[in-house]
């Protein structure tokens, strides 16, 4: 009965599959969230079931909920369970869920390594496929490292279906584990010529992705790609290759020359628009790279432009868009060819599609010339009026300003026109770019001296009509221009016709509603205007009344600002108010004050290049990071200590910092005053310092951050027609007239010339060339100042976090032996166990060349155990200090980070030595013992292949004692290393008494083994095997053999063949165990290795000798155990 209920409920839950869930959600539109939360509860129940079908169904539903935005990471473990189902159906569900919601910080990912490896090697290609697909989405650096070899093997799978997936996923592996790139690359290259087009395409895909980021490393592949390009018919592949060539040509112009012809052929022959477009794109890239040798390629340019024109004229909006996009690339180097299609591009400005309009706008930027600038801008201004959305209109506005201001106002012949354009732009409703216009106004007014009079007049009108700009709301981006207007009027007030009127306009009560920073500028510049008015009046001394009226005006109006909530405004206003009051007093006494007041604002302001400050070279001996004054600290003694330490460095603090605090400030004040003097003198002599005197306020102006101004929308109800403002159109007309006139003049001159020169150059009155257009008035554009010895270096703003940076690896260098297989990185030690020492120096310690032999890892030491350890602990402190000395040894640890970049000469030893661990956990004693044993162990070292027979334990104990004493001798000098090793290891949890793991066992014999890196020779691994006789008979003639793998080799005595067995050098009486060691030389230690071996032996029974053989099975799971316990053991497992 109970069973029935359970079964029923299982069935019911199981019945609610994905479709039911979706249906349910659709039926609960009004309380969707609630419904889903009950569903999630159900899913949680289902996940608790043992039935994998129920689980996978639940996971499938979770995948759907994830898409709807629900976090399902809590089910990550269940997803792993479903992934590891043996049934493809469930496995696929699991992998899909994992690919949707796993990411690098999902912790259960590390549980999947073995499962994925199993799936990758599954006989069913779809299991492998599904695993690869899933892995491509959630591969982590750990997975990439652990599975790189398996995936590499799959690249040569018999099924193209697997091959292409394996090839593609390698890209992800490279990204996560850059060390794998070099070893894997030769095979990747092979795949470019795979018989299966899908695999080929995948390889092209991967290499293109790689080459795009670091093109120079892939130049050597160009011939291969060239062959592919001319032979392939697959448009996908062609497009990728052609795109790749686009990235390669800038680095190798010769390649470009070769490409032109086949690309041109493709352009002519292909019917696929996508291919045509990419060809054109690459031809453009080629032509850009071939900046010289133009004449030969003008035909290609023409062809490109012509084809692009066809694209742009096409009714398909997509082609039009792409055509414009490509056009803009040509524009950069061959503006002339594009300019001839101006009509077409201007036409695109009217397109209904905003993307296309924006592209066309981009093009305009490069199409302007002195000749057509006014015309183009006029057209744009029309668009500005018509534009419906503010975004597009703002885009237009910025484009207009960009176009006009590009390359230092190169194309502007008439700045009056430009100023009036800017003024017209101020009438835009609700633009966000007030500050942009403002900065242009300021820039032009400051840098173009000739225009100042005109600009000032315009700005005065603007100020007068400020109410039109600000409208009814003060939340308005455009009022920024008032900032510029006020400043220009004040600064260049000598050009003002009626300073009095402008002053009045600037002090209107309505100004108080403007944003604070603008008011501040108003107040400041009112003072400047005031000085101008005074000076003007005193020139004509007859009427001092006006001057006094002006003072009165200021005194009347300024109090509004003094009450301002804005600190800046308040401060300036009250300062100036007091000044004016004082001046008024003087005026009443008929004192001439104009000169003094003017002196407040005298001096010229020069523009400074934006990067000037950054480019000032740091004087020699100046350390910008050093403290000027020591940061305050709590205790005096601590202070003292630090000071003595930094004494040498403290450039500015000098001795004062030693004084106690009260004195410190005293001295400091004096010092400060002195230094101020010095600094002033210095600045006076420095031509690059904007002189502060006599009016230090002026410097302030630029400092107000325009960017910080609140940007607000405005709606203007009043139609904007500012009275008395010249329209920019007038200038266009004027300009035309002027040009006509110029032309006529020139013709006359030409005629004269021609007459003089005879008939040489007849009919040469073609279109005007750029140079013929003379500016309306000569403008002196002040260039921005830069410090004298500015460093020319342009900042490389490359993103340091770009993952592709790590893939910048030279692939042409031949692979060193050590690199033939994927290199190894040490397995990360368990974070929790990591000691600070290990953190920093562990690697270096491990990599010390003078490794002590690890051969002395004998059970004797292990047995000796605890007393020794205690000793060790005493040693440790000593060791801490010694570590620094030790770490000065050549730091080979660098190699770990950069194994792939190792010079080809690097030996396997080196790599292995680095990857090689601080000796495994079990060997603190071993290491110390070893240090002592050096003399004894020498013979072993020389004959490393010989297996030394172990002595009986008792003997060893005696020996040990000797060694122990010996050790003390060494501990001061030669013991360094051993002590260090000891310290490192001491941090690890105490090792179990035995590290020996079961290797094989049958009724006769039991084998346990322990694997250690050979500290003496990093490329070797010592495997100690204890043989235990379990039977009642004598065991003899034991022969041990292991099949060599590519990577690891059993070391055999000289003269032995590669398959010969090694004789175990002892016989085993019943119940006795003994140890033998075998040495393996390793090529690489990236991957845990599985070796297979056999032991043959003869059991001596009274009546016969029967040969037996034990197969040594693998223990794949043991690898895990080993690696986690002894993180640094080379991963050999027998």
């Amino acid at each position, binding site marked *: 009965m109970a069973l029935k209920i359970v079964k029923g409920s299982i069935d019911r839950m199981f019945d609610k599959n*994905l479709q039911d869930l979706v249906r349910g959600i659709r039926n609960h539109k009004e309380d969707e969230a609630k419904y889903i939360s009950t569903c999630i509860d159900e899913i949680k129940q289902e996940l608790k079931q043992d039935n994998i079908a129920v689980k996978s169904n639940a996971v499938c539903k979770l995948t759907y909920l994830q898409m709807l935005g629900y976090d399902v990471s809590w089910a990550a473990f269940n997803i792993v369970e479903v992934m590891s189902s043996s049934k493809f159906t469930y496995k696929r569900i699991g992998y*899909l869920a994992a690919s949707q919601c796993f990411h690098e910080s999902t912790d259960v990912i590390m549980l999947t390594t073995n499962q994925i490896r199993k799936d990758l090697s599954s006989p069913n290609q779809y299991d492998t496929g599904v695993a690869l697909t899933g892995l491509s989405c959630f591969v982590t650096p750990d997975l990439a490292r652990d599975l790189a070899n398996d995936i590499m093997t799959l690249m040569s799978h018999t099924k193209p279906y697997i091959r292409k997936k394996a090839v*593609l996923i390698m890209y992800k592996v490279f990204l996560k584990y850059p060390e794998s790139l070099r070893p894997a690359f030769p095979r990747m290259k092979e795949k470019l010529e795979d018989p299966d087009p*899908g695999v080929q395409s995948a390889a092209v895909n991967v290499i293109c992705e790689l080459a795009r980021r670091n093109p120079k490393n892939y130049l050597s592949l160009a011939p291969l790609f060239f062959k592919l390009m001319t032979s392939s018919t697959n448009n996908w592949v062609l497009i990728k290759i052609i795109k790749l060539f686009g990235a390669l040509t800038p680095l190798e112009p010769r390649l470009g020359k070769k490409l032109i012809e086949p690309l041109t052929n493709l352009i002519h022959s292909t019917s696929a628009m*996508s291919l045509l477009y990419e060809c054109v794109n690459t031809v453009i890239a080629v032509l850009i790279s071939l900046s010289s040798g133009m004449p030969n390629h003008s035909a290609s340019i023409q062809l490109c432009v012509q084809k692009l024109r066809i694209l742009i004229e096409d009714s398909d909006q997509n082609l039009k868009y*792409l055509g414009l996009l490509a056009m803009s690339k040509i524009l950069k180097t061959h503006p002339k060819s594009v300019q001839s299609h101006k009509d077409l591009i201007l036409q695109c400005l009217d397109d209904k599609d905003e993307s*296309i309009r924006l592209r066309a706008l981009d093009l305009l930027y490069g199409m302007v010339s002195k000749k057509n600038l006014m015309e183009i801008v006029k057209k744009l201004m029309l668009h500005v009026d018509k534009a419906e959305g503010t975004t597009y209109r703002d885009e237009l506005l910025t484009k207009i300003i960009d176009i006009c201001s590009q390359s230092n106002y190169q194309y502007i012949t008439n700045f009056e026109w430009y100023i009036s354009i800017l003024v017209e732009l101020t009438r835009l409703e609700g633009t966000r770019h007030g500050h942009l216009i403002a900065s242009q106004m300021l820039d032009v007014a400051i840098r173009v001296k000739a225009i100042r009079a005109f600009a000032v007049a315009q700005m005065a009108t603007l100020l007068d009509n400020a109410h039109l700009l600000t409208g009814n709301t003060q939340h308005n981006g455009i009022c920024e221009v008032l900032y510029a207007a006020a400043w220009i009027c004040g600064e260049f007030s000598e050009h003002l016709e009626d300073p009095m009127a402008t002053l009045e306009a600037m002090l209107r009560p309505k100004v108080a509603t403007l944003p604070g920073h603008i008011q501040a500028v108003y107040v400041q510049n009112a003072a400047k205007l005031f000085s101008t008015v005074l000076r003007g009046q005193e020139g004509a001394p007859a009427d001092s009344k006006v001057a006094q009226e002006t003072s009165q005006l200021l005194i009347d109006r300024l109090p509004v600002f003094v009450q301002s909530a804005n600190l800046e405004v308040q401060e300036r206003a009250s300062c100036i108010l007091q000044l004016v009051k004082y001046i008024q007093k003087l005026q009443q006494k008929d004192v001439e004050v104009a000169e003094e007041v003017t002196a407040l604002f005298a001096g010229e302001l020069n523009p400074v290049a934006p990067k000037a400050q950054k480019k000032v070279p740091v004087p020699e001996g100046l350390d910008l990071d050093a403290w000027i004054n020591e940061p305050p600290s709590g205790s005096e003694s601590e202070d003292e200590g630090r000071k003595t330490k930094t004494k040498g460095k403290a450039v500015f603090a000098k001795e004062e910092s030693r004084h106690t605090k009260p004195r410190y400030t005293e001295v400091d004040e004096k010092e400060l005053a002195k230094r101020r003097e010095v600094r002033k003198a210095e600045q006076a002599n420095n031509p690059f310092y904007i002189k502060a005197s006599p009016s230090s306020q002026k410097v302030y102006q630029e400092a107000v951050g325009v960017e910080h101004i609140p940007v607000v929308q405005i709606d203007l109800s009043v139609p904007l027609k500012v009275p008395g403002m010249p329209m920019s159109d007038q200038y266009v007309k004027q300009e035309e007239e002027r040009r006509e006139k110029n032309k006529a003049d020139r013709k006359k001159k030409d005629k004269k010339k021609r007459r003089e020169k005879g008939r040489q150059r007849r009919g040469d009155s073609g279109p005007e060339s750029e140079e013929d257009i003379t500016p309306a008035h000569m403008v002196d554009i002040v260039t921005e100042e830069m410090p004298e010895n500015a460093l020319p270096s342009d900042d490389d703003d490359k993103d340091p976090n770009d993952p592709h940076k790590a893939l910048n690896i030279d692939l042409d260098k031949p692979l060193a032996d050590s690199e033939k297989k994927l290199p190894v990185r040490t397995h990360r030690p368990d974070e929790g166990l990591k000691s600070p020492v290990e953190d920093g120096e562990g690697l270096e310690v491990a990599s010390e060349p003078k490794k002590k032999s690890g051969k002395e890892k004998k059970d004797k030491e292990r047995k000796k155990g605890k007393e020794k350890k205690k000793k060790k602990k005493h040693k440790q402190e000593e060791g801490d200090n010694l570590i620094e000395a030790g770490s000065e040894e050549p730091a080979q640890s660098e190699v770990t980070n950069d194994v792939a970049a190792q010079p080809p000469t690097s030996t396997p030893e080196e790599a292995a030595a680095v990857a090689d661990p601080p000796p495994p956990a079990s060997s603190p004693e071993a290491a110390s013992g070893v240090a002592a044993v050096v003399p004894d162990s020498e013979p072993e070292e020389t004959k490393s292949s010989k297996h030394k027979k172990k002595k009986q334990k008792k003997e060893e104990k005696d020996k040990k004692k000797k060694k122990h004493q010996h050790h003390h001798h060494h501990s001061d000098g030669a013991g360094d290393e051993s002590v260090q090793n000891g310290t490192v290891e001491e941090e690890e949890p105490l090792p179990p008494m035995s590290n020996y793991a079961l290797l094989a066992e049958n009724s006769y014999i039991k084998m346990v083994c322990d694997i250690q890196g050979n500290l003496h020779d990093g490329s070797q691994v010592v495997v100690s095997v204890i043989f235990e006789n379990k039977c009642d008979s004598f065991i003899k003639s034991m022969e041990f053999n292991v099949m060599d793998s590519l990577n690891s080799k059993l070391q055999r005595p000289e003269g032995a063949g590669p398959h010969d067995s090694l004789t175990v050098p002892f016989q085993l009486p019943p119940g006795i165990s003994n140890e033998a060691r075998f040495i393996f030389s390793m090529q690489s230690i990236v991957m845990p290795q599985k070796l297979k071996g056999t032991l043959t032996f003869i059991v001596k029974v009274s009546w016969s000798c029967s040969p037996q053989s034990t197969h040594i099975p693998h223990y794949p799971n043991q690898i895990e155990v080993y690696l986690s316990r002894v993180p640094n053991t080379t991963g050999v497992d027998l």
Partner: protein
Amino acid sequence: MIKAILIFNNHGKPRLSKFYEHYSEDTEQQIIRETFHLVSKRDENVCNFLEGGMLIGGSENKLIYRHYATLYFVFCVDSSESELGILDLIQVFVETLDKCFENVCELDLIFHVDKVHNILAEMVMGGMVLETNMNEIITQVDAQNKMEKSETFIFQSPRQDR
């Protein structure tokens, strides 16, 4: 590289989302919403490229989309992909769906999002185009479905016994 593939309907309801870079669930939803907002306000007869969805980021990226009846298919790609190529790929994707579902409509995608994912997995892997040949894609998808069917048969029979 393809950064993301989104399918949503005319009302912005997601029908499939595949991100080849990791984002949190909230960010994903935000991206879907924003993309829908960008794409849905465009006319039918404008180009299928859209620059810079803010979230998926970077000036390098483009949205390439197609609108079929009630569904938008949106691919977010970087500059290494050919724009027209991706448009073709969307077409192949939709035609493949059409073959696999026999006259595909939105309901198929709503109820069988897992199958759509499986089909997509045969075309795009980890953000890179795996296969563009429709017949090849369909062969592989069919073979896998067949395998699944044979498995479910084995599995369900004992359940029916109970």
